[in-house]
């Protein structure tokens, strides 16, 4: 099964899934991660807003929830399928054409560093139609511009259903902006992401 047929009538053949979230998104991720069925056929990149402490407790917390390797990104790390990458605190996370990550400590965007828009836009630029963007709960307008970029380069976008989110503002922004190809509740999101996985054992 190389391609998945999705509700919106698209078929998606994806190599990178990038998930962005703010307030209330960690809980969603802590439900999603244990439900993933490894090995993953794509790289899963997570960008969440958090306090700008440089400690790696979040990556550790995530790694306890899944057997998929979890890595907080260091400069120039190679992007590999089957791995979960977490944007480090206090840096924007970008993707390079040579398949590596790069980091950038420039100004905050939408009061945030890492900013979801920055990673979505950069991933869209590099991955084009191979990309799926997912936007979760949050109280910030970050992510909408990024989803728009993903759509415009041929990628697919999914947004958490706002009334299932702890804070519905962020996904609602994306829906109002007309940049959500699909709107799903948490079980729906989990099913969707597992369906993207073409190598899962069943």
């Amino acid at each position, binding site marked *: 099964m190389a391609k998945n047929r999705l509700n919106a009538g698209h078929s998606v053949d994806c190599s990178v899934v990038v998930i962005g979230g703010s307030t209330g998104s960690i809980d969603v991720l802590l439900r999603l991660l244990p439900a993933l069925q490894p090995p993953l056929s794509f790289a899963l990149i997570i960008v969440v807003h958090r306090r700008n402490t*440089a400690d790696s407790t979040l990556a550790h917390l995530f790694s306890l929830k899944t057997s998929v390797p979890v890595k907080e*990104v*260091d*400069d*120039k790390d190679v992007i590999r399928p089957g791995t979960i990458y977490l944007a*480090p605190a*206090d*840096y*924007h996370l*970008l*993707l*390079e*054409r040579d398949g590596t990550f*790069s*980091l*950038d*400590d*420039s*100004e905050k965007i939408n009061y945030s560093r890492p900013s979801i828009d*920055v990673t979505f*836009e*950069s991933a869209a*630029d*590099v991955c084009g139609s191979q990309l799926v963007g997912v936007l979760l709960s949050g109280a910030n307008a970050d992510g909408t511009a990024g989803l728009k970029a993903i759509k415009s380069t041929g990628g697919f976008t999914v947004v958490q259903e706002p009334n299932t989110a702890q804070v519905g503002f962020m996904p609602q922004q994306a829906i109002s902006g007309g940049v959500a190809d699909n709107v799903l509740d948490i079980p729906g999101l989990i099913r969707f992401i597992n369906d993207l996985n073409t190598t899962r054992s069943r």
Partner: protein
Amino acid sequence: MIEEEEIDLLLKDLYEVYGYDFTQYARASLKRRINRLWTLDKFPSFAELRYRVRSDPDYLKRFVEELTVNVTEMFRDPTYYRTLRTEVLPTLTAKPFIRIWHAGCSTGEEVFSMAILLKEVRLLHKSILYATDLNPEVLESARKGIFSMSAMKQYSENYILSGGTTDFSTYYTAHYGRVKFNEELAEKMVFSTHNLVSDRSFNEFDLILCRNVLIYFTKTLQERVLTLFDESLAPLSYLGLGSKETLKFSSIQSRYKQLEGEKIWRKIG
């Protein structure tokens, strides 16, 4: 949005007309910076942006300044400074002089933090802090030692977390929303432009700090710069990088030993 080929054209111009070589900068970040400037300065087309850069040296200054990222703060990553205070500086006390190089010092917050640290461990009098950057503008600002008052709350928290015990506000005088750091701290600082892409080593150092500069470079340029640092580091001296940067991919790695838990390496070979 700028196209890849347009970026190549601009970089070629910058090199041919002004001698600045940005071709080995990490592309994704560079592209964002150029797009940002294009929007900020409201160029109707790429051709107009290109023409302005090529023909207007004043605009070039702005362009280079905004192309590079100059964000910095005092006592950034407090545990880093704690390690400098408790593990690195004590090993340098026996030296007659201590030479420190801040490469990519931006507006100087890092250099003033170091001077405070040196003063507190009573080494400032025999230290020299060389602070260099590509941008003359940020150096001009660093030289003045004037920073915004609004940042001081955060800086003083960072300072305390780094192990500082003095009242931070004794290090500066406040004036109309800005603060000026004490002259005494700046006495041992030497500011100069230095381009890590094209300039050579200019001294031998006991400690080189180059933080959050290498992330903007490709691996190839990182290797060049790390080699330059290696040539500039005395035996048993230290190299400090940013919290997400590493020696891991570099050929000089084998001669260095990393300090536990921090992005600080000691030259052992």
